[in-house]
């Protein structure tokens, strides 16, 4: 038909590619009133359609797009691909965003999609193709084609060798040399390292780094192929490359160490979204001058050096010194072929949250206790997301079976977990997120108390990954004002438990733990949480050397839930607790929230009694409802003998056989045993009987009557011998009276009922 590049006008019937044929058919049959087929052309490899498009534009538009535009659509016949879509108006705005200046024809091609044509083929109808062209023109006219939150367009387009540059290269006065593995071919990655000043040996590549003036992002151009083209591209954005390069070469003085070296240019393009804006990102491009040309030759072409041989001297690269500035002959630069280098700056710490999709960078000082499977996995996720600067505490040594689900590998066996985790995580991301690794047992710190105190007191949050009730309570009791968070798995490893205190600590880990045990009883969805048998293996001879069979998949999934929770909840002042129950076989995960409430603390000598405010409110309401009779029931909660803590987190209303009179209450027993058995079972014995409560009518003091003394005596008889504390509470319309007994001693305290408490509407469930 014709020679390869020659185009001739043809009829639509002479089109060859089915895609081009169906497009012409659509246009010729009035498929849309807004497109008209003007002409068809063909060359050896291309089918071309010239199409007129009616564009919906506002009268005053941002980019000069006309109400009618003509575009050329060229299809590659052999490949069945769209070679390009090119507006053919002479004064079409070449600089518009999402235009690519073609090579070598220097024509504007519009970037229609953000996906390769190959991916679109299955669904690309003539209608869809034309609609997209119309959309492109209309959105470009409005200046809205490029979304506000879309990253800026690249300045140049091309491919080449990958190069990694140090994050601080722009502000650094250091001189860098580049190296690459010479055996790796063109796919190799070049790395730049700081030049050792004492190294006077020959260098193969020397880096010259320049920053061009900020530019508004615009049409994309193909990378240039020689120094002259590069100079011209940069000249258009106000940067005199040849002049700057000449000055740079002249400034480097002694040429002996690099006169045979190749020149590598690093160009930083600060990019703005709009003119007069601020540079919001930087695009880097590297160019290697072909190896056959040395820096000396470039210097000579620029007039920075004289070619000594032309003076009969057997040396090259003689510095011109004070020789008068001469006009640089750009033609001289054309012979220096250049190869583009795709430059990636090293990752910076501040990039981590952005690239992770988290809105802001959070760097609180945090202390994590326990770097076991869950702790280390969550820490890894945290540092990859750039969250926090961490001190980490653990006493354990890494043992062979830890490999199963820990982030460390067998190389760490026999070494302290914290130290290995520190090395591992600091090598993982920039910025050394692990500040300190402390080998210590928080339950028995010995000579580490001081360093632990410092770490806890300096932290904004202390995170307990210890999977130990004792350790969590120990942490809760530390003098530090930091908020606490506790994350652990249930014994089977299928459920994730997440607690975080309110930032003012009015809801403490004590209170959350109590609410958690109460929820285990009343929340059906938590059935079996602590009671299901875990499959275990013994890894040592000791009776405690048992490990549960939990896969890395299990810990990864649950850690993956825990970390974003920690990140989100850290940013809220509220306390929160929830359990996620996973079923790895079906892939289902379900969240069960645990209602948490602030506590009201009463002191009784060495004992502290923390009332869950919702429980207290419910008792008060029950009293009101029973008037004029008295009412009562039993109190449930957790008891810690070491910390002398009683946390009242649940209660049981008066059993049906109770006797309620205006001036007396006798608590019945019917059904109580079953309730208590279930409470103990579901909470694995953590939630227990605390004592009795009953109400007094209005006008009767919240203090024990003669009958009440008998009740307390009865409790004393039961519990004093066992060493367990016990309580008796009396509530009237104003006060809560509490008498606590322990090992033969009695302590009394009275607290006015806080007004706000009476309006609390929590979800603490009555145990029935």
């Amino acid at each position, binding site marked *: 038909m014709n020679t390869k590049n020659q185009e001739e006008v043809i009829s639509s019937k002479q089109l060859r590619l089915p895609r081009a044929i169906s497009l012409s058919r659509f246009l010729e049959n009035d498929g849309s*009133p807004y497109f008209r087929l003007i002409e068809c052309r063909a060359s050896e490899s291309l089918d071309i359609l010239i199409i007129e498009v009616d564009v*919906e*534009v*506002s*009268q005053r*538009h941002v980019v000069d797009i006309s109400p009618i535009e003509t575009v050329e659509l060229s299809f590659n016949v052999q490949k069945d691909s769209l070679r390009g879509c090119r507006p053919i108006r002479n004064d079409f705005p070449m600089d518009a965003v999402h235009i690519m200046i073609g090579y070598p024809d220097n024509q504007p091609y519009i970037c229609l999609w953000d996906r390769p044509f190959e991916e679109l083929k299955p669904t690309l109808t003539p*209608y869809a193709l034309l*609609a997209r062209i119309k959309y492109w023109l209309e959105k470009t006219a409005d200046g809205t084609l490029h979304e506000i939150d879309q990253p800026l367009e690249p300045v140049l387009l091309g491919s080449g060798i990958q190069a990694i540059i140090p994050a601080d290269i722009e502000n650094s006065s250091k001189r860098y040399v580049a190296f690459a593995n010479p055996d790796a071919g063109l796919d190799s990655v070049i790395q730049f390292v700081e030049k050792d000043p004492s190294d006077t040996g020959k260098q193969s590549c020397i880096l010259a780094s320049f920053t061009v003036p900020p530019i508004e992002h615009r049409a994309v151009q193909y990378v240039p192929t020689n120094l002259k083209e590069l100079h011209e591209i940069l000249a258009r954005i106000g940067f005199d490359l040849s002049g700057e390069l000449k000055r740079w070469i002249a400034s480097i003085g002694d040429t002996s160490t690099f006169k045979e070296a190749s020149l590598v240019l690093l160009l930083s393009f600060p990019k703005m979204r709009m003119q007069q804006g601020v540079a919001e990102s930087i695009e880097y491009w590297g160019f290697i001058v072909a190896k056959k040309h040395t820096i000396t030759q470039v210097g000579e072409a620029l007039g920075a050096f004289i070619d000594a041989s032309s003076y009969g001297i057997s040396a090259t690269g003689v510095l011109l010194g004070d020789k008068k500035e001469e006009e640089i002959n750009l033609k001289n630069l054309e012979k220096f072929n250049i190869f583009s280098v795709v430059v990636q700056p090293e990752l910076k710490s501040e990039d981590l949250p952005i690239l992770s999709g988290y809105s802001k960078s959070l760097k609180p000082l945090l202390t994590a206790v326990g770097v076991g499977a869950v702790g280390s996995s969550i820490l890894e996720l945290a540092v990859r997301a750039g969250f926090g600067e961490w001190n980490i505490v653990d006493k354990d040594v890494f043992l062979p079976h830890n490999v199963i689900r820990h982030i460390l590998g067998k190389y760490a066996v026999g070494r302290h977990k914290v130290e290995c985790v520190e090395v591992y995580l600091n090598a993982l991301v920039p910025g050394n997120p692990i500040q300190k690794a402390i080998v210590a047992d928080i339950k028995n710190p010995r000579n580490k108390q001081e360093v632990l105190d410092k770490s806890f007191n300096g932290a904004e949050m202390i995170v307990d990954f210890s999977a130990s009730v004792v350790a969590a309570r120990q942490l809760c009791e530390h003098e530090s004002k930091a908020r606490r968070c506790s994350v652990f798995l249930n014994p089977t490893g299928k459920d994730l438990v997440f607690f975080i205190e309110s930032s003012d600590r009015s809801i403490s880990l004590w209170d959350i733990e109590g609410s958690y045990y109460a929820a285990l009883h009343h929340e059906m969805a938590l059935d079996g949480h602590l009671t299901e048998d875990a499959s275990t293996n013994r890894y040592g001879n000791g009776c405690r050397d048992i490990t549960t069979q939990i896969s890395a998949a299990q810990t990864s999934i649950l850690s993956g839930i825990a970390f974003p929770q920690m990140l989100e909840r850290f940013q809220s002042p509220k306390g929160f607790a929830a359990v996620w129950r996973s079923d790895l076989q079906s892939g289902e995960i379900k969240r069960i929230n645990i209602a948490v409430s602030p506590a009201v603390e009463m002191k009784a000598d060495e004992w502290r009694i923390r009332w869950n405010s919702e429980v207290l409110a419910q008792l008060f309401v029950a009293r009101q409802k029973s008037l004029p009779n008295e009412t009562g029931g039993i109190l449930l909660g957790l008891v810690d003998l070491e910390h002398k803590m009683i946390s009242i987190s649940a209660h049981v209303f008066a059993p049906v056989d109770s006797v309620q009179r205006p001036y007396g209450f006798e608590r019945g027993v019917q059904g109580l045993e079953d309730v208590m058995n279930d409470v103990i079972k579901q909470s694995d014995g953590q939630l227990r009987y605390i004592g009795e409560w009953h109400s007094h009518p209005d006008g009767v003091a919240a203090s024990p009557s003669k009958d009440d003394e008998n009740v307390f005596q009865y409790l004393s008889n039961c519990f004093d011998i066992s060493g367990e504390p016990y309580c008796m509470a009396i509530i009237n319309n104003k006060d809560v009276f509490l008498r606590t007994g322990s090992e033969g001693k009695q302590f009394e305290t009275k607290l006015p009922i806080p007004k706000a408490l009476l309006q609390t509407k929590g979800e603490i469930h009555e145990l029935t």
Partner: protein
Amino acid sequence: MTLPKAIFYPSGNADTCLIQLKNNRRIIFDYANNYDAENDDCKYIDLESEIRKAVGNEKKVTVLAISHLDRDHYRKVSDLFWLEYAEKYQGDDRIKIETLWVPAALILEEGSVKEEGRIIRAEARYRLKEGKGIRVFSNPNALDDWLEREGIAPEDRKNLITHAGNPAPEFDLAKDGVEFFVHSPFSVTGDEGEVVRNDSAIFMHVTFEVEEEQTCLILSADCPHEILDAIIRATKKHGNEARLVSDINNVAHHCSYRSLAEEKGDDKTEPNENIKWFYEQQGNRGCILISTSDPIPTEDTKQPPHRQAAAYYKDVAKTLKGEFLVTMEHPTKSNPKALVLEITGNGHRVKKSMPAPFFAVSNKKPPRAG
């Protein structure tokens, strides 16, 4: 945000412009329905259906303006609208007119008024006598004799009469985002002391305001060049040049050369300096010139549209980087549709939305099957 719209309908050489405001008030400036349901080749739009669709269940327009008593400006008004003067023109499916806008001549005209014209005249006279639901655009005192004959003191109807050089009080730029400034009917004293009077037709300058940006529309009906020239002179004389600025210009009389000049010209009509100034200087960049007419012929024709006038308007549009659009050619001659101009904070925007093939199928009855 709902944007105001100006919609021109393809009804051949006939004018209908519906202006829809963001507050749902509507103005129909002339209404001429040439649609013939019996004719399968009829390319005129089914105007009644279009207007019913636009008005919706409210069945009410704020204003119906009849620029003058020519059939191509009122045809089938009496089929669609609720007329107050006779029960015959009242019914649940009819669209009510809050205010009827007419020129004084429409009231006064006694000559060869065609049948439907008489109906409209009767309605206008009824409303004026009743003293409500009408605005008459008139020269001062032009209606006095008629009113007195009807036993009405002219002073009592003063509030219903608006003179040239004033905005119509039914709309407020701040509240409605639109203002209608009346250029004609008018009277003007010429350079040689002669008085040019024109009571026959309404000529308006409409200003839309969206996001504090103004877009101006000229509605000139069938204005001949002499009257246009007189309007321009009067406007300049009063220093009101801004009232002749246009972003959308509904060129007069279905693209007749008579609205530009006395001479048609061989290939292009050449207007006088005043009219050139009006189109070329007062037209803003991107101005759309709209001919409410049949497609522009390639040969000379007696009736408008005239290719020579179209050649002038096309050149103006090209210079202004705008467009010259013909209602019966938009978007194609074979299948003309309503020409919808959305008024945005960046001026007008001619809607060219591209329904997906499915919608094209779903909006159209399939051909009859056996």
